[in-house]
């Protein structure tokens, strides 16, 4: 639960300004992301930790796709949060209006961009080779089936690299972030219908690749 109260310093702010409120975090479920960001930017540092904890799994899931090494994941996640807070500071008025989901949409979009920039800088794309995150070829009781699965994975990931950037982004937000299409669309600045169209075009090619076609 979250309660709002005045700090001792509020009286000191005086003048014609509204009193400065901050959020006491005791669970955080009832405070919106936007309210927490505003609290943080007004000096309540605990709101920062609460927001990071709230979204770090999502951000981690999104940036892992672009990480070159396991160590990169935390760095990319951190960079995403810092940029999202910096963006929030520039658009404080919008946040104060309480536009729901705004911060999360920024965060998702920024995480994807941070990942893409990292890939551009390191000139590699993670769909093709996920081994850097500790993935080993699975050898089950049926070696022939395991080999076939490994080959399918290679073909599907290769097909991912041949998709358009937008298709890849939609698939990645869906697979890695498990986001509803409404959120995928908002993060990418497209309509929900458009997001689904990109998704289904991509799926057709990926299915063909899995079944041994070109993809």
């Amino acid at each position, binding site marked *: 639960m979250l309660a709002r109260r005045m700090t001792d310093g509020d009286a000191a702010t005086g003048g014609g300004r509204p009193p400065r409120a901050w959020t006491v975090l005791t669970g955080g479920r009832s405070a919106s992301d936007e309210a927490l960001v505003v609290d943080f930017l007004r000096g309540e540092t605990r709101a920062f930790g609460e927001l990071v904890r709230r979204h770090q799994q999502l951000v981690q899931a999104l940036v892992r796709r672009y990480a070159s090494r396991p160590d990169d994941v935390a760095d990319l*996640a951190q960079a995403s949060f810092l940029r999202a807070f910096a963006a929030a500071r520039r658009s404080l008025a919008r946040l104060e209006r309480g536009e729901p989901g705004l911060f999360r949409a920024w965060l998702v979009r920024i995480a994807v961009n941070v990942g893409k920039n990292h890939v551009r800088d390191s000139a590699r794309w993670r769909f093709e080779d996920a081994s850097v995150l500790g993935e080993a070829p699975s050898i089950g009781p049926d070696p022939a089936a395991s080999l076939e699965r490994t080959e399918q994975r290679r073909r599907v990931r290769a097909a991912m690299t041949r998709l358009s950037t937008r298709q890849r982004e939609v698939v990645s937000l869906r697979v890695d972030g498990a986001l509803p299409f409404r959120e995928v669309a908002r993060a990418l600045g497209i309509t929900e219908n458009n997001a*689904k169209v990109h998704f289904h075009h991509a799926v057709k090619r990926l299915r063909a690749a899995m079944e041994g076609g070109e993809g």
Partner: protein
Amino acid sequence: MSGQGLGCQEVEPLLAERASGPLEPEQAAALERHLAGCLACRAAAERDRRLFALLALPPPGPEEEAALRTLPERALAAWHGAEGRRRKARAAVVAAAVLLAVALPLGRWKATQPELAAGEAADSADELSQVEWSAPAWDPDEGAPADEDTPFLDALALEGDGAFSLGDSG
């Protein structure tokens, strides 16, 4: 969606959506009802499940998890570090702006000084030539000029020096 439930054609796109992430609760319920009675769509659903399993990344390893456990604290420290640098950079910009605000008018003022000096020098030269021209025509043979002329000439010499020294410095 009809009152009869979803047909196979309507279900086909939902299969990949279901395999890749969440569906709207109503859609999910209608899809489950259809799959319960349709073998072909269940096979297609299994194909899409395998497809997205191939795309999924492996779960995070212990090293990755450990790094992420401390993310809130590290990110906050990084934010404060960046804020400190930002404040310093802003202070440097303000200082530079103040310096410019002071230096620009001073520079402009100084830039006008050589012209003044040159003008003054020219004036002095004119005066000197006039002095020579209008100098009392005493007879050298008659000795030094009269005492009352000396202060005037001394003052003129000082004035000339002053003008040239200004011109030199500019």
